[in-house]
């Protein structure tokens, strides 16, 4: 009897049975504190600051696609009230100008989108419009990429391809200083 007891004392094994409990405890802690971040958004390159406003009146009228958003979140595209759902299609037609229309961009490289909003425009509406315009371009890039290289346009396609596409259809969006009619 005494012999067994010594042997018991000598066996130096740690009881790993509680390991799972400890791990569980930690697991629950991390489960609770975790916020899986969805850090996504629309990346924009702002123009450097300059005192004077760029003058877009010098540009040919047919090359400018003006989009105005007022304080009631209504859209005026080239002088016509438009719904936001139509914006993407109109922008695409304007930029690519498939029928060589006299009133639309001479060629994609000359097309300029001019976006102007009010200080009272909701951010939601602004971002939706911005998103639609960006989507119009990315759809055009995609079509061009399919035609030229037979692959869809994506951020991780070969750099040379991407550059060629971006040179053919550059994304030019000019944002004017907003008006201040509807500031809350």
């Amino acid at each position, binding site marked *: 009897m005494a012999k067994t007891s010594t042997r018991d004392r000598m066996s130096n094994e740690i009881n790993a049975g509680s390991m799972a409990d400890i791990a569980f405890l930690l697991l629950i802690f*991390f489960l609770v504190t975790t916020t899986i*971040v969805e*850090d996504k958004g*629309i990346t*924009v390159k702002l123009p450097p600051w300059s005192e004077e406003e760029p003058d877009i009146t010098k540009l040919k009228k047919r090359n400018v696609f003006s989009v105005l958003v007022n304080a009631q979140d209504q859209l005026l595209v080239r002088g016509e009230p438009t719904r936001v759902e139509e914006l993407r299609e109109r922008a695409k037609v304007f930029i690519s100008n498939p029928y060589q229309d006299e009133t639309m961009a001479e060629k994609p490289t000359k097309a300029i989108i001019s976006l102007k909003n009010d*200080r009272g425009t909701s*951010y939601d509406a602004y*971002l*939706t419009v911005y998103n639609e315009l960006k989507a119009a371009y990315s759809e055009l890039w995609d079509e061009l990429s399919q035609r030229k290289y037979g692959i869809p346009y994506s951020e991780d396609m070969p750099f040379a391809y991407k550059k060629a596409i971006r040179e053919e259809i550059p994304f030019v969006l000019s944002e004017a200083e907003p008006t201040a009619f509807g500031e*809350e």
Partner: protein
Amino acid sequence: MAKFAKKRGKSKPEVSTASLPDIIFMLLFFFMVVTVLRDAELMVKVSTPYASELTKLEEKSLVNYLYIGRPTQKYQSTYGTKPRLQLGDKFATISDIPLFLEKHKIKVPEARHGQITSSLRVDGEVTMGIVTDVKTQLRKSGQLKVNYSAKKDPNAKE
């Protein structure tokens, strides 16, 4: 009675739990890696709008966050309900932005200063007035890489 006893004796219905700690550890490591401990308590309500043309922000250390929204219930008595700017963990004004950017910049190696992105986390209901002011200040401070934080619309068709 005997029948029952016999059956129980024959089969051993014990599942080995030896691998349980391993499984739990695996999960644990996953969550440990994924977890980002929130460094700033949000004092403004931010519910970003939906969009489809999203890019992912890759490196968190190169990103600084500017929150714009209405103060939450708790702070409304002190700060009112007008949209406010939050930098780090406190309310700020537009003129605090340059210092905020500078403070973030010194934590980033100099070679990577050009890759710093400002993430604008703006509530959808906020009007463009304050957003424009922030944008103007960012441009004046030379911080031109901006990301308008947005969510993917769960109902959007692909």
